[in-house]
């Protein structure tokens, strides 16, 4: 018999026990019996303790699992790192280590202990623990547990735990030989929020090799179909919302990756193939800040992003300004040469990072508040880190809008992009505006890097995987059109996510790329570009 087999039987037995009238102290005899040589005697003792239904036994069982339950002078004691305590009364004892004698716990006993702990947890006062225990039962329920679960149901007051227990009972009910029982079980399962339930029901409708169905009774099959439809219809809205949300989140990622490029390429016309590496630099800055926090301010670790965001902006912007002053400015008006040169720069940056941080991906840990998610029901969970990305993208867009429309640099920039010569004549320091603008674009790319570090791998090749996407977004949106970039990024995200269920992630991406290529054929200046003499030139 397998370990799980033992465990199920033990659990069944223990559940019975747990629901029996409770005594109020640990049974000294039973505890003593745990130290017995014989395995069966140990099992019986575990059984008895569960029957008494004292949740205090959980600690005892856990200690036993960790080999912390030992014998001293014939007394059963709990040995922890802090010292030795009597298992029954809890008083602290002073014991020389060599006087302790281990209690043998084999796999059979371990299985029984697992089940015993799970069973006792079904009746602990803390709702959260009861809920977790109910989930465990619902996920892994054998037929023999049915009566126990049903009895636990009677005592349970919490609605959520109750539902779970009911579903666990129903899942077992599906295996009942009585067709009517099965039908009722299917009915209950139709109310389930658990994504696995649908598979459970769908299995009933599968054909067997001999031509019949797994479920022989037609009425049950019909009920199962009804239940599946019910589950599906309840899931339609959350799933749609989920897809929209994940599309929005992918769109935000694309947007964050492309926004910097919308400035350097879109507004300044510089084909910056090293744009991806600005993202990478931002991501690695985040990594460094995070590592510093872990080392020096572990208490404030969850707040490291507050430092990482401005740091990434500053580092990327600085690198950008150096590049512009050092290399790119010599190439104004020669776009194809700029393309090749910046590609060269990207190779150097990649190798530099590889030498500094290693060729492997580095681990960037999310702050705790970003893990987990928000359930929409129907098995759809919105992950918090994705939610944060969407908000962050909005923040960066706002920041950029403010910088471009509410600052002197923005004013100068708009003047320079519209008429460089005229702007120069009006006393605008065009070289400085160029450098600062390129720095701004690079810095915003760095912010994109912070976001990317929170959702994906951070490695030297990070930028390379985003460069094609970023250019596609900017070109599709129409060069020089920030609003176009935003719309393009978000719609690409949505299209991608809506295609994914039908075409798969890779094929979906290919379809999107082909779509962009076709759109650009039709509108070479992008979807939202202005038509006019300047655009035609």
């Amino acid at each position, binding site marked *: 018999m397998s370990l799980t087999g033992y465990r199920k039987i033990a659990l069944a037995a223990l559940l019975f026990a747990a629901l029996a009238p409770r005594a109020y102290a640990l049974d000294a005899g039973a505890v003593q019996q745990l130290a017995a040589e014989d395995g069966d005697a140990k099992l019986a003792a575990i059984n008895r303790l569960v029957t008494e239904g004292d949740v205090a036994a959980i600690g005892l069982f856990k200690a036993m699992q960790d080999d912390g339950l030992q014998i001293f002078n014939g007394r059963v004691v709990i040995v922890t790192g802090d010292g030795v305590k009597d298992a029954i009364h809890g008083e602290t004892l002073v014991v020389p280590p060599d006087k302790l004698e281990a209690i043998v716990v084999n796999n059979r006993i371990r299985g029984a202990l697992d089940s015993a702990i799970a069973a006792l947890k079904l009746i602990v006062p803390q709702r959260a623990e009861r809920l977790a225990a109910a989930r465990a039962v619902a996920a892994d329920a054998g037929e023999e547990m049915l009566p126990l679960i049903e009895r636990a149901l009677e005592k349970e007051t919490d609605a959520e735990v109750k539902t779970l227990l009911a579903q666990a009972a129903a899942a077992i009910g599906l295996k009942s030989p009585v067709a009517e029982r099965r039908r009722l079980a299917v009915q209950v399962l139709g109310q389930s929020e658990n994504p696995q339930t649908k598979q459970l029901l769908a299995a009933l409708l599968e054909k067997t090799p001999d031509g019949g169905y797994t479920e022989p009774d037609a009425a049950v099959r019909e009920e199962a179909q009804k239940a599946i439809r019910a589950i599906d219809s309840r899931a339609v809205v959350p799933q749609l919302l989920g897809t929209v949300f994940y599309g929005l989140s992918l769109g935000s990622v694309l947007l964050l990756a492309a926004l910097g490029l919308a400035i350097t390429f879109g507004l300044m016309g510089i084909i910056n193939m090293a744009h991806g590496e600005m993202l990478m630099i931002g991501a690695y800055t985040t990594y460094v800040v995070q590592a510093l926090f872990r080392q020096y301010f572990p208490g404030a670790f969850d707040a490291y992003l507050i430092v990482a965001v401005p740091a990434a902006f500053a580092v990327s912007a600085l690198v950008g300004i150096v590049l512009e002053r050092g290399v790119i400015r010599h190439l104004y008006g020669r776009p194809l040469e700029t393309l090749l040169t910046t590609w060269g720069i990207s190779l150097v940056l990649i190798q530099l990072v590889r030498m500094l941080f290693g060729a492997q991906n580095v681990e960037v840990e999310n702050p705790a508040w970003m893990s987990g998610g928000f359930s929409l029901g129907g098995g759809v969970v919105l992950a918090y880190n994705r939610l944060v990305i969407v908000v962050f993208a909005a923040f960066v867009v706002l920041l950029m809008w403010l910088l471009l429309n509410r600052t002197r640099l923005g004013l100068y920039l708009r003047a320079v992009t519209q008429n460089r010569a005229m702007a120069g004549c009006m006393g605008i320091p065009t070289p400085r505006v160029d450098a600062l603008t390129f720095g701004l674009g690079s810095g915003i790319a760095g912010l994109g890097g912070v976001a990317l570090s929170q959702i994906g791998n951070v490695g030297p090749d990070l930028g390379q995987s985003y460069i094609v996407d970023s250019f596609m977004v900017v070109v599709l949106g129409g060069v020089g059109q920030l609003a176009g970039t935003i719309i393009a990024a978000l719609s690409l995200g949505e299209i991608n996510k809506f295609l994914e269920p039908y075409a798969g992630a890779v094929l979906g991406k290919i379809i999107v790329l082909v779509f962009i290529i076709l759109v650009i054929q039709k509108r070479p200046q992008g979807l939202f570009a*202005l*038509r*006019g*003499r300047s655009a*035609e030139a």
Partner: protein
Amino acid sequence: MTQTAEGTASSSGDTVGMAHMVRPGEVDISHGAILYVEGVTVSFDGFKALNKLSLAIDAGELRCIIGPNGAGKTTMMDVITGKTQPDAGTVFFGQTIDLLKMSEPEIAHAGIGRKFQKPTVFESHTVFENLELAMKMDKGVWSSLRYRISAEQRDRIAETLEHIQLESRAGIAAGLLSHGQKQWLEIGMLLMQDPKLLMLDEPVAGMTDAETERTAELFLSLAGRHSLIVVEHDMDFVSSIARKVTVLHEGRVLAEGPMDVIQNDERVIEVYLGR
């Protein structure tokens, strides 16, 4: 929009129709005019660069077109040469050739040559090669691959070189020419195309007085055999060559007539002087 365009096209085409036998590739100038521009409108995002512009050029005529910045002169040339599609209107070359249905190379083959505002020549080619490339011949891919220059073609190029006074520079790269020489080379290239209609956008910009004078002579000698449309800002130059002047303003014809009449036209003065 398309409906009006087609409507006008058929009504003006009716009179021609089958009445005259016109050989393909020939321009039918039986009604005296070589170019008809009718009701052409071009707008860029709401801004109307051309607003129902109508204009007719006679065969052999030398027409000057003037107008303040933004009057639509360059856009008009773009429409005639196929670079810009108008939102409405028709453009006919002679009686039969609908220019709006043709691409730039087709329009060039039909016999319209264009000189850009900024002199545009093939800078890395020699002056000789520039003229050779412009010469009227089969310009398909395959014939280019097999092409060998003939003695007559050499003569023609030599003739044109003389005409534009660049004989001594035939072997140097066109990019090394002075601004004025480039203008002349471009005009020479147009002549090599043997067009029926030449459209010249600011042909004397950047030329010395002597060069300007020679250009005026050249244009006057071309008129008659060719039709010319000259867009120019230099009023002295215009009055030295012009017989008939058209003034464009805000995308439409403001005035049309002999130079002395135009110069005294109240509206023209107002437009040019700004009040």
